[in-house]
């Protein structure tokens, strides 16, 4: 039984990591990401200097999972560099004397999820990302965070736990191509002519559950519907043309800092 769970976990991890690996982010990433050379540098350094305490999977220090990008508090790339360079007083984490390019390499390796073929997205400052989320991005117009905001779009209160930097980057820059299938907008027309619009929450062979535009939980029997359509276009605008590279990095940092209550 234990081995079963182990295998399932292995496959699940494989899925998550590979999904990012194969994300076709392509040239559009430009200066949003670290290079594969950086990641390779990070691997060599990590194996030689970090793995002894943090372990091969980066999960041997309590409250920290480097491979999954989980820290005791949200850390920007600069924060990570600082922690590595200066150590953490009062803990076994020492200061490492490294070149700037070596620090970049370690950050890249961590951001890539320990995957040499992975995508390491730059993460900025969460404190500077929050006003971008609330202001320029107007994300709060549709999204809800920690009980504030509407429920029309998915609640982002713990988005930093469930998504990697690369996934979040793809979502904010290509909302249509990265919309999770379950979140597709629904348009249904009942047999008596009533039109219902909302966001899909769950579906099976006979029914579909949505949250409608009035934020009501509605369960529909497909047999009662005259029309049932799933939208492929996300209502969310892309930030790729409105945000600078640094602004995107800060926005990602803020999203990654959202870890639930």
């Amino acid at each position: 039984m234990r081995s079963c769970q182990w295998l399932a976990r292995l496959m699940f991890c494989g899925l998550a990591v590979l999904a990012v690996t194969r994300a076709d982010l392509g040239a559009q990433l430009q200066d949003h990401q670290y290079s594969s050379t950086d990641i390779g540098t990070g691997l060599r350094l990590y194996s030689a200097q970090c793995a002894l305490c943090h372990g091969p999977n980066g999960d041997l220090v309590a409250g920290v999972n480097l491979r999954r990008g989980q820290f005791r508090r949200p850390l920007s790339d600069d924060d990570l560099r600082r922690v590595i360079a200066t150590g953490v007083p009062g803990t076994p984490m020492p200061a490492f004397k490294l070149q700037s390019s070596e620090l970049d390499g370690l950050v890249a390796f961590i951001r890539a999820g320990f995957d040499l073929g992975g995508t390491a997205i730059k993460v900025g400052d969460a404190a500077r990302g929050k006003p971008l989320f609330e202001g320029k991005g107007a994300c709060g117009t549709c999204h809800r965070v920690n009980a504030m905001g509407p429920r029309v779009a998915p609640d982002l209160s713990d988005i930093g736990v469930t998504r990697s930097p690369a996934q979040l980057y793809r979502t904010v820059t290509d909302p249509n191509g990265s919309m999770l299938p379950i979140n597709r907008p629904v348009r249904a027309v009942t047999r008596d002519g009533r039109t219902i619009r909302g966001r899909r929450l769950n579906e099976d062979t006979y029914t579909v559950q949505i949250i409608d535009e009035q934020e009501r939980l509605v369960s529909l029997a497909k047999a009662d519907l005259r029309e049932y359509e799933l939208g492929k276009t996300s209502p969310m605008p892309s930030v790729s043309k409105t945000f600078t590279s640094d602004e995107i990095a800060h926005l990602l940092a803020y999203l990654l800092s959202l870890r639930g209550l």
Partner: protein
Amino acid sequence: MKSKSIAPCVCLALAVVASAGLHAQVSNERILRAADEPHNWLTYNGGYASQRYSLLDKITPSNVVNLESKWVLQNEVFGAWQSNPIVVDGIMYITQRPNDVMAVDAVTGRVFWQFRHTPSPDARVCCGANNRGVAILGDTLYMGTLDARLIALDARSGRPLWNIAVADVKLAYSITMAPLVIKDKVVVGVGGGEFGIRGFVAAYNAKTGKEAWRFYTIPGPGEPGHDTWNGTDWEHGGAPVWITGSYDPELNLTYWGVGNPGPDWNADQRPGDNLYSDSVIALDADTGTLKWHFQFTPNDGYDYDSVQVPVLADMNWQGKPAKLMLWANRNGFFYVLDRVTGKFLSGTPYVKVNWASGLDANGRPIQTPQPEGSPTWPGNQGGTNWYPPAYSPRTGLFYFAAWDNYGSIYRKEESQYKPGQLFLGGGFTVVAPVAGAPTVGIGRRSPINNWTNEVGNGVVMAIDPQTGQAKWKFPQFDVSDSGMLTTASDLLFTGGREGYFHALDARTGQLLWKAALGGQIVMAPVTFEVDGKQYVSVISGHTLVTFGLR
């Protein structure tokens, strides 16, 4: 006076014993003629032909809407309940994780006794601590265990009669299947295809547990087929047998589906056809001697286990009566074989297939490996899998659960065999519309389907063996691991991961009735009759529900 009063009591007592004895003894003759007593469900697949077709017809397309729950039995342990009950004269014998056996009143669901075997902590299985049921002969039940033991139990008391080691648990051998009794022997196969075992099927004396024969599914040095392996690969090449086989008494052949070679996903590491992995083998039931084999997927790199149930059907083929074997394989092709000789008769893809461009005249696939990073169809769990299919001699249709629109991207890596350890040779991802989106896996993990039908959906398929084409399809939103049950009243019962239990018209696929049971249905329903009333039992989640007419 005294003697007068005692005599009737003695007679009555004897009559009760004799009656109970007659009812409890399941002779070979009774198993051979299982179709003659459709009120019982005597073997895993309902009879040696494994058709899961019952002659019971009191529940019909017109009254099936009157089905109601008569009783439920709750599972006491966590995890998918993948067991198949047998029913003998009003008593149901059912297993639950990891290796419990219960005798249950088939009318009320009340339990007579429970036997519990605690597997060794060394037991290792890839995909769930499953047990799929027991076999019966005479007054004795037989169960294989997760720690690769075979246990005989007194069917009336649940007390063990013998308990033997079938294989070494420390090498990750296991048994999850229900055994098959043939004559005076209990036949069983072993799991462990993800751990580098050397698979086999073995027969044991039903009275003593002494091994009668053993057939290794990977030929040893000097045996035919050994040259399909390179070097020492044969010693740990997998080829497990974890689903119950079938038996043709006229030919005295027993048929078994063989699983994947190991390591699973790196076929380059084990060059050759890797016989008899991904094959069906036909063995002499008395000696275990191989009479013929047919390999579906040579040098498999996709985990296309051929552990489907061999379904035996007699019908006309090209105008002449024929003894056929029907097989919807995990590799996406539906096959018809001559079960006397093993000759390939036809093979047709039933889902999208791109790992092969087709089959040659002998049924050998023309393999078309996809470039690294590109999708392969069907995906790792296959077009179908171990889920028991059904065949109705009345409709002439073969019914099974297919996964449609489901593909995988495989990756290979070199694996080193270490005894008892996972031996996988890479991994795979499920093709999804969005990188990082949730996907389907082994068993349902949530009441919310956030992977959706965009990564695969279930289809109940009714294939006409004569053409290899689907006569009808019944699509489901989520994929399905449910087996099938069909009846002489042309009903088809099946379920799925969504927890719906469906009754379909076996001729048209029309939905006639459904019950929302809530938990995933990952085994086939069975039907039986007690006191003239027909029942249908199905396991959903942690609950076995028995339905009958109002």
